[in-house]
Every structure is written in C-alpha cells, then in structure tokens.
C-alpha cells in the first residue's frame, strides 16, 4: 500500500515544470532522441538537455547513448510512486473515517440488542 521511494521531493520538483511534464508525456508513448524531443518545443538542444538532466537526476528517465545520438527512455516506477503519493493518504484517511463510523454503528446495534 504505502510504499515510497526516497527523494520524492526531487521527483515532484522535476515535475513542477510544464516543459518537463510535456517531455515525460511524450516519452510515455515511446523513447525518443534528444533531437526529436527538442523539435516541438522550439528549444535549443542545450536547453532541452538541461531539462533532461533534471528528469534523469530525479530517476524519471534514463538516457542511453546510441551512436551519435542520445535516446531518452521513461522510467515509470518513479512516476508511479509520485502518482500514488497524495492519492494514497487522501484516500487512506477518508476511507478510514468511513470505516470508523461503521464500527461505531455496529457497536451500537450490538449493545441495543
């Protein structure tokens, strides 16, 4: 249930930027080279590389050298951990309070019998 990888701060920090989220979204459909990633953003290669370095540091992507180009691959485990993060606790407490109310109701029925 509540299993967290370390440094989720880094993951959230990396994803706080819209360009980096867009990069992650594009990589979700398949790996791309740095050049291919840079194209739609109208950005220089160094600028994109900087974003990629942040994503790499956060463990969200891996960069693999293929000949003269660098291919970027999404590492989904970290992404999943980030996605589970808040959802888990919000749901955890809401569900727990529901269950707590049920238990009190059951107890009361038992006593009134």
């Amino acid at each position, binding site marked *: 249930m509540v299993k967290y990888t370390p440094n989720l701060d880094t993951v959230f920090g990396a994803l706080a930027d819209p360009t980096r989220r867009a990069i*992650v979204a594009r990589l979700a459909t398949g790996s791309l080279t740095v050049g291919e990633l840079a194209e739609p953003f109208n950005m220089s290669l160094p600028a994109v590389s900087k974003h990629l370095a942040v994503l790499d540091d956060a463990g969200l992507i891996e960069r693999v050298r293929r000949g003269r180009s660098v291919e970027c691959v999404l590492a989904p485990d970290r992404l999943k951990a980030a996605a589970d993060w808040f959802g888990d*606790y919000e749901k955890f407490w809401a569900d727990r309070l529901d269950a707590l*109310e049920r238990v009190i109701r059951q107890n009361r029925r038992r006593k009134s019998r």
Partner: protein
Amino acid sequence: MTKPLLAPLEIRRVIDATLAETWAAWTDPALVARWFAPSDMRAEVIALEVRKGGAYRIRMHDREGRDHTVGGSYVAVEPQRRIVMTWAWEGGAEPQSQVTVEFAERSGGTEIFVLHERLPDAGSIDAHRKGWLGCLDNLARTHASRRAS
C-alpha cells in the same frame, strides 16, 4: 528548485456518533483494529499507549501476505479533544510525519478533524496535484502496458 514545503492534508468529517464513542474508537485497541486497516487488509494493534510519550504500533496484513506496520509516539493526548502523534512506516523511505486528530461535539454527531502534516512535498505541486495525478497514473499505465506488449 525543489522546495521541501509542507503540504498538510486535512480532512474534516462529522460522524453520527457521540464524542465518547468516537474517542473510544481511537483509543480502544479492539475498536482500532476494526477500522484502521484498508478494507483489503487486516489490522493488528500491537501497541496503543494513548498517553503523552506512549507508543503505538499497528500492523496491517495484506492479501499477498505482506505486512505494513505504521507506528510512532503520542506527542499530545487530551481526552475527548485531541491526539497528536508521529507517523512512520517501518522499513519505509518516507520520513516521519505527524498526525493530529481533533474531536468536537456538533449537532448531529461528532466532528473529527484529521491533519496529516510534515509530509514531504514540492510546494506548488499541491495546487496542481489533482490535475496531474490522473495524468501520471495514465502515463505510468500506458508505459507499463507498452512495455508488456
């Protein structure tokens, strides 16, 4: 830059129960065992020393036979008013956080206020989290199924 801001999680709920019943549900191990674990798990209350400085430890057994144990100590205990406790999963990488529970009599029942704070977070994410959590889930799923195929 990553800001390790605190994004507390708050839940406020009025339940159809008296203050005494609600307090008992948080402090009687037999009762806690019945509601504390998610529905697909079984809770086992190992310790529940509801007093300042006392420890609590609750183990949850899931269907795959794994155990998830949460525990901590009571920072403050005011009977039928307030419980403040530290919160940490054993063997987890998540840093210790803190849970405050407040109880108040209301017309129609008892209000429970849960504040879960000192959770690591990246500040601005909080405002956006609802929007992109779904996206992240989808992305992770898309990628997983693509890899599996």
